[in-house]
C-alpha cells in the first residue's frame, strides 16, 4: 500500500496542480526543450549537455532538479531519431540504428510514416522502460547481478552474431564486417596491460600513433559510415532526399498505426532495451542494434530490411528509449552508473545529499522521488511526442527540399559531429575515412551494422573474456547463463536457415501448383568488370586480417602474448571469413533475379557520364569542406564554404545563395558558438596570422 501511495505521489509531485508540482513541471518543460534541440543536432551529445546543466540544480529541491535533468535526458533519443530518419545522420550516437531502415523510407517519400513510427515506438519504449523501472525496484538486485563476466562476454558475442547473420544472401560478408568491427575495437591501448595495438605508428608517425591510442571513436565511425554515402548519393541523384511522393501512405498516422500493428515487436524490443539498459557496463550503444537484429530476425521476409522496412524503425526506436528507464536501475540501486549521462545524474544525487542505494527504495525516505523518475520519463516523452506530432508533417517536407540546399548544412554538421568527439581534427579525418569505407560497402553490397556492433562490443568482449577465464578457468563455459546464451546463439543462426528451407519448400510447392502463376526467375550474368571490383573490395578485407595476424606473429605480439591473444582469436576466423567472401565474389558468375523481389524506389536514371562527373564533384566538395574547416575554422567555413558550394557548385541564384549562407552563419555562430560555447578551434590561417 505504501508502495502505491508513493507511486501516486510521485506523479502528483511533477504535475502542475500543487506548488511542488508547478516548479517541477516548469523546469521539466525547460529541460525538455533543451533535450529536444540537443537530440536533433548531431554535434551535441546528451551527456555533455547534462554536465552543463548540473550547476543549475543547487537551489532546487530534489524532485525539481531531477525533473529538469531527467526531462532533458529522456527526450534526446526521441528527437535524435528524427535526424537519423530525415538525413541519414545520427542525431545522437544511440539513434544510429534508426538510419538503416528509416532513411531509406524517407527516400521512398515515406518520411512522415517513418517519423510517426519512430516517435510512437519511442513513446511506447519510454513508457515501457519507465514501468520496467518501477517494477524492477523490488527485485532490482538479482536482475543487475544476474550477469557476470562470462555472461557479458557471451552476450557480446550473441549480439555480434545476431547482427552479422542478418546480411541476407551473403553471410560471409556480414560476419567478416563484424570481425572487422572487432578489430577496429582493438585499435589503441589494450584494456588490460595497455599495450599499443594497431596504432600504425610506422605509417602515421608518433603523433598519429598516439591519436590512435585512444582507439577508434564510435561516433566518428557511425557518422562517416552512414552519413557520407547518403550525401554523395544525394548529390549524384540530384533533386530532393525523397525520390517520390506517395501521398497519404507516407503520412505520420500510418506510422502510428504501424506501431500498433507490430505491437508485439515493439514490446519485445522495449524489453530488450530495458534489460540491456540495466546491465551496467554495456552503455547506450548496443541496445538499439540488438533490437534491430531482433526485428530483422523475427521477420519472415528479411530481404526488405535496409531498404525501408517499417519494423527496422520500430525496433531500435523503442529500444533506445526504453533503455533510459533500465539504465536508471543500477544508478539508483547501487550508485553504479550504466552510462556517462547516468554518471552525471549520480553527481546530481550527491549534490542533493542523496546516497544512491537502499534509501531510494525505502518508502520512508526517497521512494516517492524514485517513482517521480518513472513519471518524469513518461510525462516528458508524452509532451515531446505530442509537440512533434503537431509539426511532423511539416518536418517531413524537408525531404522534398532540393538536395543542393541541404548538402552544405549536412557536410558541416557531419564534420562537427566528428570534431565534437574529442574536439580534434583527427576524428574529422576518421569521418572522412569511414565515409569512404561506407560508400564502398554500400556499392559492393556489404552490410554496415555488423561493423558497428563489433566496434561497440569489442572491448567488452575482450576484457570480460579475460576476467572470466582468469576467475573460472575453462569452467566458465559451463555456467548456466553461458549455456543459455550459447543456445540462443545457435537458435539465432539455425532459425533463419530453417526459415530459408521452408521458403524453398513453399516455392517448390508453388511451382508444382500449376494454377499459380510461376515466378519468373532468370539468371543473369554478372559483368566481368563488376566481378573484378567486387573481388578487389573483398580482397581489401583479406588484407586487413592478414595484417592483423602479421602484427600478432611478427609485430607487437612477439613481446606481448596477453595483448595478442584476442587479436589472434578474432584474426584467424576473420581471415577465413574474408577469404570465403573473396572466393564467393571471384567464383560467382551469375546472379538470380526474381520478379517478386522487393521493389526498391525508382531511382531516376542518371547517365553514367553525368553520374561520374557529379560524383567527382561531390567528392571534391566533401574534401573541400574538410580543408576549409581546417584552414579557417568552423565559423568562417559556414560562410565561405557554404556560399561557394551554393553559388559555384550548385549554380544557385545570388539571392538564394546569400540567404542560405546567412542561415548557415546564424546557425553555426549563433547557436553553437554564441549560445552554447562549443570549443571551436581556430583555423590554421588565423594561427599563422597570429589572430588566434
Amino acid at each position: 500500500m505504501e508502495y502505491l501511495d508513493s507511486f501516486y505521489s510521485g506523479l502528483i509531485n511533477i504535475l502542475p496542480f500543487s506548488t511542488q508540482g508547478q516548479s517541477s513541471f516548469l523546469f521539466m518543460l525547460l529541460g525538455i526543450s533543451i533535450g529536444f534541440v540537443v537530440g536533433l543536432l548531431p554535434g551535441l551529445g546528451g551527456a555533455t549537455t547534462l554536465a552543463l546543466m548540473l550547476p543549475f540544480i543547487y537551489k532546487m529541491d530534489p524532485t525539481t532538479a531531477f525533473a529538469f535533468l531527467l526531462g532533458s535526458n529522456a527526450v534526446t533519443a526521441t528527437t535524435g531519431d528524427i535526424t537519423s530518419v530525415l538525413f541519414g545522420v545520427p542525431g545522437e550516437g544511440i539513434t544510429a540504428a534508426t538510419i538503416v531502415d528509416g532513411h531509406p523510407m524517407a527516400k521512398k517519400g515515406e518520411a512522415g510514416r517513418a517519423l510517426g513510427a519512430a516517435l510512437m515506438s519511442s513513446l511506447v519504449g519510454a513508457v515501457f522502460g519507465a514501468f520496467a523501472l518501477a517494477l524492477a525496484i523490488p527485485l532490482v538486485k538479482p536482475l543487475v547481478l544476474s550477469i557476470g563476466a562470462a555472461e557479458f562476454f557471451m552476450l557480446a558475442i550473441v549480439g555480434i552474431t545476431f547482427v552479422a547473420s542478418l546480411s541476407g544472401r551473403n553471410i560471409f560478408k556480414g560476419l567478416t564486417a563484424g570481425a572487422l568491427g572487432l578489430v577496429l575495437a582493438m585499435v589503441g591501448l589494450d584494456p588490460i596491460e595497455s599495450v599499443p595495438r594497431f596504432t600504425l605508428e610506422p605509417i602515421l608517425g608518433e603523433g598519429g600513433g598516439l591519436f590512435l591510442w585512444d582507439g577508434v571513436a564510435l561516433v566518428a565511425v557511425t557518422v562517416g559510415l552512414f552519413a557520407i554515402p547518403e550525401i554523395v548519393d544525394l548529390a549524384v541523384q540530384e533533386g530532393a532526399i525523397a525520390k517520390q511522393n506517395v501521398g497519404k501512405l507516407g503520412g505520420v498516422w500510418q506510422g502510428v498505426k504501424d506501431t500498433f500493428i507490430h505491437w508485439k515487436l515493439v514490446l519485445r524490443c522495449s524489453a530488450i532495451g530495458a534489460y540491456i539498459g540495466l546491465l551496467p557496463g554495456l552503455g547506450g550503444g548496443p541496445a538499439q542494434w540488438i533490437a534491430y537484429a531482433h526485428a530483422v530476425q523475427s521477420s519472415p521476409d528479411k530481404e526488405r530490411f535496409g531498404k525501408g522496412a517499417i519494423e527496422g524503425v520500430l525496433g531500435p526506436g523503442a529500444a533506445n528509449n526504453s533503455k533510459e528507464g533500465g539504465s536508471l536501475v543500477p544508478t539508483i540501486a547501487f550508485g553504479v552508473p550504466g552510462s556517462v549521462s547516468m554518471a552525471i545524474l549520480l553527481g546530481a544525487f550527491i549534490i542533493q545529499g542523496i546516497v544512491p542505494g537502499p534509501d531510494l527504495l525505502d518508502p520512508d525516505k526517497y521512494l516517492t522521488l524514485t517513482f517521480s523518475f518513472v513519471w518524469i520519463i513518461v510525462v516528458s516523452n508524452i509532451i515531446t511526442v505530442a509537440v512533434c506530432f503537431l509539426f511532423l508533417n511539416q518536418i517531413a517536407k524537408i525531404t522534398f527540399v532540393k538536395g543542393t540546399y541541404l548538402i552544405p548544412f549536412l557536410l558541416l554538421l557531419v564534420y562537427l559531429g566528428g570534431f565534437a568527439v574529442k574536439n580534434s581534427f583527427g576524428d574529422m579525418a576518421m569521418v572522412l575515412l569511414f565515409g569512404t569505407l561506407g560508400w564502398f560497402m554500400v556499392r559492393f553490397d556489404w552490410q554496415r551494422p555488423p561493423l558497428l556492433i563489433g566496434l561497440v562490443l569489442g572491448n567488452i568482449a575482450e576484457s570480460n573474456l579475460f576476467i572470466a577465464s582468469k576467475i573460472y578457468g575453462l569452467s566458465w563455459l559451463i555456467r548456466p547463463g553461458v549455456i543459455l546464451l550459447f543456445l540462443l546463439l545457435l537458435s539465432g543462426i539455425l532459425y533463419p536457415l530453417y526459415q530459408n528451407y521452408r521458403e524453398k519448400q513453399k516455392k517448390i510447392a508453388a511451382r508444382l501448383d500449376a494454377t499459380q502463376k510461376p515466378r519468373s526467375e532468370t539468371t543473369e550474368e554478372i559483368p566481368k568488370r563488376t566481378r573484378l571490383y567486387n573481388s578487389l573490395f573483398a580482397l581489401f578485407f583479406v588484407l586487413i586480417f592478414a595484417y592483423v595476424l602479421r602484427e600478432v606473429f611478427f609485430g607487437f605480439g612477439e613481446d606481448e602474448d596477453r595483448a595478442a591473444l584476442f587479436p589472434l582469436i578474432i584474426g584467424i576466423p576473420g581471415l577465413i571469413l574474408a577469404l570465403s567472401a573473396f572466393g564467393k565474389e571471384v567464383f560467382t558468375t551469375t546472379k538470380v533475379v526474381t520478379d517478386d523481389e522487393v521493389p526498391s524506389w525508382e531511382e531516376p536514371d542518371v547517365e553514367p557520364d553525368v553520374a561520374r562527373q557529379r560524383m567527382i564533384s561531390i567528392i571534391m566538395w566533401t574534401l573541400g569542406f574538410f580543408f576549409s574547416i581546417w584552414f579557417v575554422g568552423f565559423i568562417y567555413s559556414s560562410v565561405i564554404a557554404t556560399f561557394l558550394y551554393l553559388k559555384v557548385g550548385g549554380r544557385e541564384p545570388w539571392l538564394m545563395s546569400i540567404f542560405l549562407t546567412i542561415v548557415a552563419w546564424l546557425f553555426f555562430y549563433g547557436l553553437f558558438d554564441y549560445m552554447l560555447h562549443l570549443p571551436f578551434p581556430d583555423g590554421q590561417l588565423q594561427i599563422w596570422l597570429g589572430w588566434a
Partner: protein
Amino acid sequence: MMKRCLTLLTLVVVLALAAGASTAALGEEFYKGKTIRFIVGFSPGGGYDTYTRAAARHISKYIPGNPVPIVQNMTGAGSLIAANYIAKRAKPDGLTVGVWNGAYVLQQVLGDRKVKFRGDQIGWVGAPVKGFPTCAVMGYTGLKRIQDVMKSGKRIKIGATRAGGTTHDLPVILNRTLGTNFDVITGYSGTATIRIAMQKREVDGACWGWESMSVTARAMLDAKGDDRLIPILTHDDANDPEIKHLPQVADLIKGEDNLATFRAWVAQYAFQRPLSLPPGTPKARLNTLRKAYAATLKDPQFLAEAKKSKLIIKYVSGPEIEKHVATLLATPAKAKEALQFLVRKKKKKK
C-alpha cells in the same frame, strides 16, 4: 653616466612591469568566453570523476574571465591514455587540465617506456586530497581482519584495472612485502565495475583509496552481514573514525628492504587525484589556475557540498607536489630494483 644608467635601468624595469601587467591583463582576457576542459582518465562515477566534477563546478568563479568548465572522461588503461594525452598531445594553453593517476610518475622512474614523460615536466596545479590506500573484503568471505586474510588458505580474488593503478599495485605489493596471497584479477574498467563485481561475488574484495571508497561504496560499507564491504587495512591518517582503528600497512611489514620498497611505492599517495597541465603551459596561467584551485578548495559552497557527499578534502598545493615529484624522481636504486615487478618486462628477446 651613472645617472643615465640608472634612468635606463628604471626604464627597463618599468617597461618590464608594464609588460608583466599587460600579460596579466591578457591572462584575464584569455579565459573570457573560453571553455576549460577537465580530462578525467577514469570512468564516470569513480573517485577521480567525483572529485573533479565537484571542483569543476566551482572553479570558474575564481578564474579571471570565468571560463565554462567541462569535464570529459578519457578512459582506458588505468588513465595512462589521459596522462600521455596531457603530456604529449594537449595544447599547453591552460585550457586543458588533466586528472590521472599520479602513479605514472613512479612508473616512469622505474623505466616504463609507455609513460612518455617525466613527472617534473608536468605543470602541477594542486591536489584535493592525499591518498589513503585501503583494502576491503566482502562480508561473505568470513574474513574480518587482515590477520584472518593472512591465515586464510583460501583464494582471495581482488578486482583490479591494470598495472600502475592502486587497485592492481597495492595487492601485488602486499603479496610481495607482507606475504598476503591475493589473486589479482585485472581488466575491470574502474572501481564502479569492481564494486558491481564484488556484489556479484565475482571478486572477493578490492584495494583503492578510502577517500573514494568512503563515498562511492557508501551503501556497501553500510550494508549488513554477507553484503557488507569490510575495510581491513589502510595507509596514512585519513582522520576518519570509520577506519581509525585499522592497522597501518607500514606497521605490519617486516624487514627493512620490504619497508623501503613499500615507502617508495606509497610516496605518490602524498598527492592524489592531482590536476595537471601539459608541459610548456605558460607559467602565468599555471599560477592563475593554482590560485583558483586553492580558492575553490576553500570555497564554502564547495566545502558544504564536499561534506554533504563525504568527500575528504586535504589540499596539497602545486609547489608541494613539485617537491614530492622531485623526491620520487630521486628514488634510490635499491628500491627501484625491488619495484621492478611493477613494470612489465619483454618476455622474449628480439
